[in-house]
């Protein structure tokens, strides 16, 4: 608790941060991230790129589920839409990549409006089931619209260059993803302090009260779907760039569960939490691999045989443990630690 620290006008209340220390840390972090390709090897860089893409997806889902309170089990569907839009526009229509990335976001946003309309009357579990249904329908459409999507054959993604750099691998991909991640986080932080973000939180906390206060539920719920899916679509597009090949199997239900696990783990409704959760969960499989490789050959063979199962089980365990013991998520752990640090030796 800082003393002698007063907020004197509304502008200070909604400022991202009025603490010089926070901004310094942020700038330092950004410097490290920019220099990262020179510090870690290729394998490390691939991992970091995956976790940055996970951050974009998680921050986007957090807008819908954490801030507006609309539970979505359809994340995989929107990722698929983004990835396929990007892959097809690049490969079949030869659009430049700086145009296909926003286009995939826009296409995902448009389709999310389609999902959003029947969902307007529903909330809670019913909405979760509807979004689940939509994500199955999306992958079915992709599978059977062979004329456009190549159906079960999938699409090889190639020809993504910006200023002559191949942005599908290594350092150029890293910088592209890093830039978009920072942009997404800043956008999310800024949206949550505008009228839109406050309306979303009002809808989450009490929709009827929000409506009485003059918030147009239809408009803001659809806006939540559209904005969230725009960024999810971009995350999907980046996935297609990194993977270089997309087919329907990549976007299975486990991806939606992973996304929800990330934001629960991080702390629902918190953007910093979504970032922390995404980092934690994308490095979890790697940590597990290292953990198993410490044992004798038998156990590491077990790991290579059942890598997906162990990963899935780890997600499940993480979800259950956090819901049970720390519903505020990692961000809650961080806040507790900070409070303990600043109040020590007093309890509070």
């Amino acid at each position, binding site marked *: 608790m800082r003393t002698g620290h007063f907020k004197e006008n509304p502008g200070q209340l909604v400022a991202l941060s009025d603490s010089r220390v926070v901004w310094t840390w942020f700038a330092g972090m950004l410097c490290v991230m920019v220099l990262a390709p020179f510090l870690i090897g290729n394998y490390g860089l691939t991992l970091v790129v995956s976790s940055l893409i996970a951050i974009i997806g998680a921050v986007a889902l957090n807008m819908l589920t954490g801030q507006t309170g609309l*539970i979505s089990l359809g994340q995989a569907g929107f990722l698929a839409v983004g990835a396929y839009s990007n892959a097809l526009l690049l490969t079949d229509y030869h659009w430049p990549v700086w145009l296909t990335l926003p286009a995939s976001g826009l296409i995902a946003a448009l389709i999310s409006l389609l999902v959003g309309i029947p969902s307007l009357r529903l909330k809670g579990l019913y909405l979760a*089931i*509807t979004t689940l249904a939509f994500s199955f329908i999306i992958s079915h459409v992709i599978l059977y619209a062979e004329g456009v999507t190549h159906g079960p054959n999938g699409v090889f993604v190639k020809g993504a260059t910006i200023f002559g750099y191949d942005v599908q691998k290594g350092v150029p991909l890293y910088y592209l993803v890093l830039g978009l991640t920072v942009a997404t986080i800043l956008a999310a932080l800024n949206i949550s302090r505008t009228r839109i973000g406050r309306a979303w939180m009002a809808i989450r906390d009490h929709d009827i009260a929000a409506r009485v206060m003059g918030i147009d539920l239809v408009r803001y719920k659809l806006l939540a779907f559209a904005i969230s899916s725009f960024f999810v679509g971009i995350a999907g597009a980046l996935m297609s760039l990194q993977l270089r090949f997309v087919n329907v199997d990549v976007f299975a239900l486990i991806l939606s569960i992973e996304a929800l696990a990330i934001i629960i783990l991080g702390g629902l409704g918190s953007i910093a939490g979504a970032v922390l959760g995404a980092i934690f969960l994308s490095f979890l499989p790697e940590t597990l691999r290292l953990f198993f490789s410490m044992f004798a050959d038998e156990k590491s063979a077990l790991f290579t045989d059942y890598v997906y*199962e162990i990963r899935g089980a780890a*997600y*499940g365990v993480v979800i*259950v443990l956090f*819901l049970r013991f720390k*519903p505020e998520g990692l961000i809650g752990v961080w806040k507790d630690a900070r409070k303990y640090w600043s109040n020590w030796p007093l309890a509070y």
Partner: protein
Amino acid sequence: MDFLMLLISTGLVSGAAYGLIAMGFALVYKSTGVVNFAQGEIVMLTAYIAFSIANGLHLSFVPLVLVTIPISMLIGLVLERIFIRPMLGEPVFAIVMATVGLAVILRSATIMIWGSEPFNFTAGMSTAVIKLGGIPFYPAQLYLMAALGMVVLAIWLFLRFSRYGIAMRAVAANETAALLTGVSVNQVHALAWMLSSGIAAVAGLLFAANFKLAPDIWFQGLKSFPAVILGGMDSVTGAALGGLIIGLIENLSQGYIGEGMREIAGFIVIILVLMIRPYGLFGSRDIERV
């Protein structure tokens, strides 16, 4: 005409499987207010357990069912105690997410124990084709439909006449009032999980006997959602009827509309039902909406 009859008969068979799984969903939702996303995984787990029992003890069908059901009820009780009971009093969203986590854990555990290769599993039934009114059936298909009928009857009698069934309906109607009249809500919740796991065992055993025992049976749980939604989330017998209807719709649309419709017809039904009549055919009308 033959084509239509064949579609209808296979539709009813797969519909019976949906109906059984959906009844498990509805039973838990009715008494605890939680959608159990792990129902499909419990179906898969119990099917594999039945497979191991059948291989180990060489039982024929009826004894196998009689052994499997108590074991799966015990599993349901343990799962409720470990994963759901400690969450009591948390928001519904948190409990539902815990069942999602439980689902992933069970799915992985099943594959790690029994491997990912599918097995042929006859459950002690013959595979000779029986003709009923000119339509060929496998015995397993007839058993599946008969099982649906018997489970519906048993559950209806249980909810209507037994002391615990009445307690369960009381909890469903008003949890606090039930608590005040001396009903142990905890016991009712545990009982709901036990019964729905028991039904899941019947569904899993017969589904595996009809198709294959493979680690993708869990997906039948998700495919049974349309049945629960159509029947009404809190109507157990409605879920059974919803299952039969969904089975018919899936097969008829596959036959007459186009390839692959079987996979998504149910999900389209979900969206339509939720838009037009969110409480389903037999559910109570207090569904949340804005």
